[in-house]
């Protein structure tokens, strides 16, 4: 029972990080029907940018205000990079065949990943300990303050995003553009700015996710983007890609699943089990758990 509760806590923490990153994938996919392969590397980049902000701007001092500043500055920088990425690599390919945009996304991924390597070097960097190591023992389960912060902040961000998408005019524009871009354009929605907006939101959420990953695991490498990006993308697919609550659900489920696999079965086979789960879900429900069951347009 203790193992169960412990893995539940770990799973929810990992899951909320997956969910934050998955939102970036799912929003871009929803509107552009494009797997933004560069998103995972953006997440990795945000960890390094956070490290840079900490050492260069804050002069290696960690106060509460400083930590908040790291999050905001990093998110702003990543949002700018995200919008630039879309302008340069994706917008010219809006009308090109699907696969051309996929190759462009893979190219962008290589550029960002190797850009990190060229700037910060190929070796692992250790992210500073910005959150005090406080642990609570709750009925035999050890919960760290970091885990609580990650979980609470992620939930707040996700609820805020959900309300933004469902209740505001801009959110309605995003929903309309992901249903039908041409019809949305005819209704007077500026799809170009909607796409810029989702890159701003997606990249900022990814930046928060990346900083959480850096704070939680501490070791950051230039190529960690593929690993976390792939998991987050699987989370988005499990939930039904293009579906925002789906990405949150998928992230949480995947986090719990991988925590329980590592806890009860074996951590060396965690990837294999995750992909088997994905393949199983796709065979039973080809559009994911919350995806609409639409007949395929060809």
């Amino acid at each position: 029972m203790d193992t169960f509760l412990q893995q539940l806590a770990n799973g929810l923490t990992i899951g909320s990080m997956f969910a934050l990153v998955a939102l970036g994938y799912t929003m871009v996919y929803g509107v552009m029907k494009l797997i933004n392969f560069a998103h995972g590397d953006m997440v990795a980049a945000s960890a390094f940018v956070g490290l840079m902000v900490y050492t260069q701007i804050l002069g290696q001092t960690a106060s509460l205000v400083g930590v908040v500043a790291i999050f905001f500055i990093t998110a702003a920088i990543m949002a700018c990079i995200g919008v630039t990425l879309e302008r340069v690599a994706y917008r010219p390919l809006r009308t090109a065949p699907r696969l051309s945009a996929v190759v462009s996304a893979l190219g962008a991924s290589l550029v960002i990943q190797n850009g990190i390597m060229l700037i910060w070097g190929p070796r692992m960097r250790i992210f500073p300990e910005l959150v005090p190591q406080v642990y609570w023992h709750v009925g035999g389960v050890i919960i760290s303050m970091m885990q609580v912060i990650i979980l609470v902040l992620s939930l707040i961000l996700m609820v805020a995003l959900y309300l933004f998408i469902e209740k505001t005019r801009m959110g309605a524009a995003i929903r309309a553009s992901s249903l039908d871009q041409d019809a949305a354009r005819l209704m007077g929605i500026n799809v170009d700015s909607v796409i810029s907006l989702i890159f701003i939101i997606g990249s900022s959420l990814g930046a928060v996710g990346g900083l959480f990953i850096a704070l939680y695991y501490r070791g950051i490498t230039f190529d960690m983007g593929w690993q976390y990006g792939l998991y987050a993308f699987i989370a988005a697919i499990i939930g039904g890609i293009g579906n925002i609550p789906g990405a949150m659900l998928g992230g949480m489920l995947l986090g719990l699943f991988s925590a329980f696999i590592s806890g009860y079965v074996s951590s060396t086979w965690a990837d294999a089990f995750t992909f088997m789960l994905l393949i199983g879900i796709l065979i039973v429900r080809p559009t994911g758990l919350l995806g609409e069951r639409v007949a395929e347009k060809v």
Partner: protein
Amino acid sequence: MKKLSVAGISIFLMVMAVLPHFLDSRWQAVAITFVIFSVVALSQDIILGKAGMFNMGQAMFFGMGAYATAILNSHYNWPLLATIPVAILVPVCVGILLAAPIVHLRGDYLLVVTIGFNIVFIQVLVNNLGGVTGGPNGIFGLEYLSIFGHELRSQVAVYYLAFAVLLLTLAIMLNLEKSKVGRALHYLREDPLAAESIGINTKLYKIFAFALGAGIAGLAGMVYATQYSAVSPEGFEFIQSVLFFSIVLVGGSSIPGVLLGVFVMFVLPEIFREFSTWRFFVFGFAMILTMILRPRGIWPATFGKIPKYMIKEKSHGA
């Protein structure tokens, strides 16, 4: 145009046939690598370019062939050439088994599932399943090629083995274009629904394309294991699959385009070795730039006799 391409192919093949005699051993090794990776990229082209399935796990089939050869040679003392049928059949069977439940998935989902297969495959190799894969270090110390008990120690022998595999692959590709299967795959890629409605068994042909691509990649894997007389999981990582995927699309899924892509991706870095840390950074930019300037690839494939003005750019939405 037709004459030009025939002339081009024959000049290319003639140059390739005498190439190793003009190179020192380092460049011979590069030439072998070029030929092997060309075969893998062409096999990827069958699945991705010809059948239009977004397969991002081709390195897995390549690795299966290589590991089949390595395991049979090192643990069971099969001569290298005798492992060829197994190196082909294992990926073919696995390809059929894996493809059957997933070929109906739409493009992007198929892509992620094939990425998954590749990652599971690497995990199987690293965790040394069944105790025959050698774990993270792989298997090394394979024998030399031998024909009738006569050992061929020179690299040139490996080159000609690779070259023979390339010739076979090119012959398959050229015949595929003219055959019923090739026409079916082409139709399938352009419009699956219409293909289905005129009686093409889409599922069967898709699985066939997977099996064919897997088999050819497996054969290339056998040559790869022979060249290095070793195999290790790094050679078949998912990043390799990404490279093959990109080569086919950047090249334009035509034979010259794919060969050009392999040349740029694997031979140019050997020439510009001092810039090796910049390699993928530059390639990334090149991929973006190529797609913006030529969305259908550097050397786009043409099919049959359809005049150019009749081929409509399709947006392939949803």
